[in-house]
């Protein structure tokens, strides 16, 4: 269950400098600087429309930067993305698509070099391994469409892992998932990170996120990230400019929210 990552792989895996990106000439994210190092586990929170998905799409080479540059494993995103395992947002899927769990996870084994080569035993082995990891091996031959939201999310995580990635990118991994599944997913991600996979996840789920990630930042058009371990009032002020901070902070576990005074 170890991730085969060669020692020659760079320490700085994603390097973003002065990035502007968006749609139709309008920038959704402004002047983003972000370094992601090996074994990081970064959680970015922010309101909807704050550019979380836009940032992920740019890292994945699905969206061209308007300004600034991005390197993934020292390469351009379109080349470097082969080292990335991507877990898209739940809502993009056709929830009634007829496919088995195994077939979904096996997609992680695909790449452009595999075009004329059928799946082999090694692929099946890796699929089983990843399914065991997300605790769904017994569901292997079931239809994806009959699984619960939390189970499906773990299938997508297994699919991303089947690519044996250096970096895992997750877009709202706990959206429309019940509380127990949410905890299970975060514990799983924690374990994956322990195994040496770098993780960047974006979410508006402040509650659970900070108890599992190593560092946390906030994205709302601009990025507020200085390697903090906890959500700070400053972060919320930047991230949720238009909302009263008290309202958002209400309901957060106490230990999550660092005291104002401690920062000085």
């Amino acid at each position, binding site marked *: 269950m170890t991730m085969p990552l060669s020692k020659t792989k760079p320490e700085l895996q994603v390097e973003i400098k002065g990035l502007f990106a968006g749609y139709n000439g309008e920038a959704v994210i402004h002047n983003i600087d972000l370094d992601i190092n090996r074994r990081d586990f970064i959680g970015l929170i922010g309101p909807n429309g704050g550019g979380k998905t836009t940032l992920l799409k740019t890292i994945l080479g699905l969206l061209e930067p308007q300004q600034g540059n991005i390197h993934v494993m020292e390469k351009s995103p379109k080349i470097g993305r082969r080292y*990335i395992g991507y877990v898209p947002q739940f809502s*993009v899927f056709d929830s009634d698509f*007829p*496919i088995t769990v195994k077939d979904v996870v096996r997609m992680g084994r*695909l*790449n452009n070099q595999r*075009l004329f080569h*059928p799946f082999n035993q090694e692929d099946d082995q890796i699929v089983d391994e990843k399914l065991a990891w997300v605790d769904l091996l017994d569901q292997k031959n079931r239809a994806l*469409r009959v699984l619960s939201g939390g189970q499906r999310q773990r299938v997508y995580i297994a699919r991303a892992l089947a690519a044996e990635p250096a970096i895992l990118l997750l877009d709202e991994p706990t959206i429309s998932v019940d509380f127990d599944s949410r905890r299970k997913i975060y514990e799983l991600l924690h374990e994956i990170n322990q195994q040496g996979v770098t993780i960047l996840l974006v979410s508006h789920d402040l509650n659970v996120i900070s108890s599992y990630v190593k560092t946390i930042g906030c994205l709302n058009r601009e990025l507020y990230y200085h390697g903090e371990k906890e959500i700070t009032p400053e972060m919320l002020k930047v991230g949720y400019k238009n909302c009263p901070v008290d309202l958002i902070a209400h309901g957060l576990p106490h230990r999550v929210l660092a005291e104002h005074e401690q920062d000085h």
Partner: protein
Amino acid sequence: MSELLSYGFMRNALMASVLVSLACGIIGTLVVLKRMVFITGGVAHTAYGGVGLAFFLGVNPVFGALVFSLIASFIMGAIQRKTRQRPDTLIGVMWAMGMAIGIIFADLTPGYKADLMSYLFGSILAVTNIDLWLMFGVNILVVALIITFYKEFQAAAFDETFARVRNLPVDLLYLILITMIGLVVVMLMRMVGLIMIIALLTVPAAIGSLFLNNMKQIMLLAIGLSLILTTGGLILSYFLNLTSGPTIILLSGIAYLTALLIHHFLHHSHS
């Protein structure tokens, strides 16, 4: 039954049923899973413009339909992928314009025009050797492509973004698919007519995807079902003395509604 087979046109018609079923089941499955039913309807109706134009120019309408169908496929495919607006209005307008072009060219052509109706409503009993060869060629192409790129087509149908991140040639796969849709439309034109193609192309795959969870199995079932529906409709139309295309389509529609009902009851007895 032996009386039925003694007619040369009937033998051709039955052979055509077998041939169309193969491509129809495979492409129909991708059309249904990728939710491209509307675009396929658009391509089929636009192709009538080519029939009218070819009729006017005095060439074989199949070639006219082929040119229009492929051009419509490319344009509609590009519209669906490139525009951020809802593409259905634009496709709907092209759909109607294609029909209008066909009818106007038919008006401009002097002489007897009853033959043009057969392209709209099908005339499987008039299947010629050229039609059979076209069907044969399209089948070879479709089967070869799906065998070669099965896992990539499946990945792109399920989650195109993920496929792109894995560096699969999703744009090329889409171009191949849309080209095949254009070819299959022309192939089915003789069978059930341009107006009713969507039903024959989508019903077998839609039934399959109600009950099965494996794309390969859905394709195989869809091939079998379209074989049953086309030959069944054909034989029925012969004995009831009805037009074959609409009989096939009505039979397909009844089969789909029945499948939906069965699925509904199965589903509800589970939960």
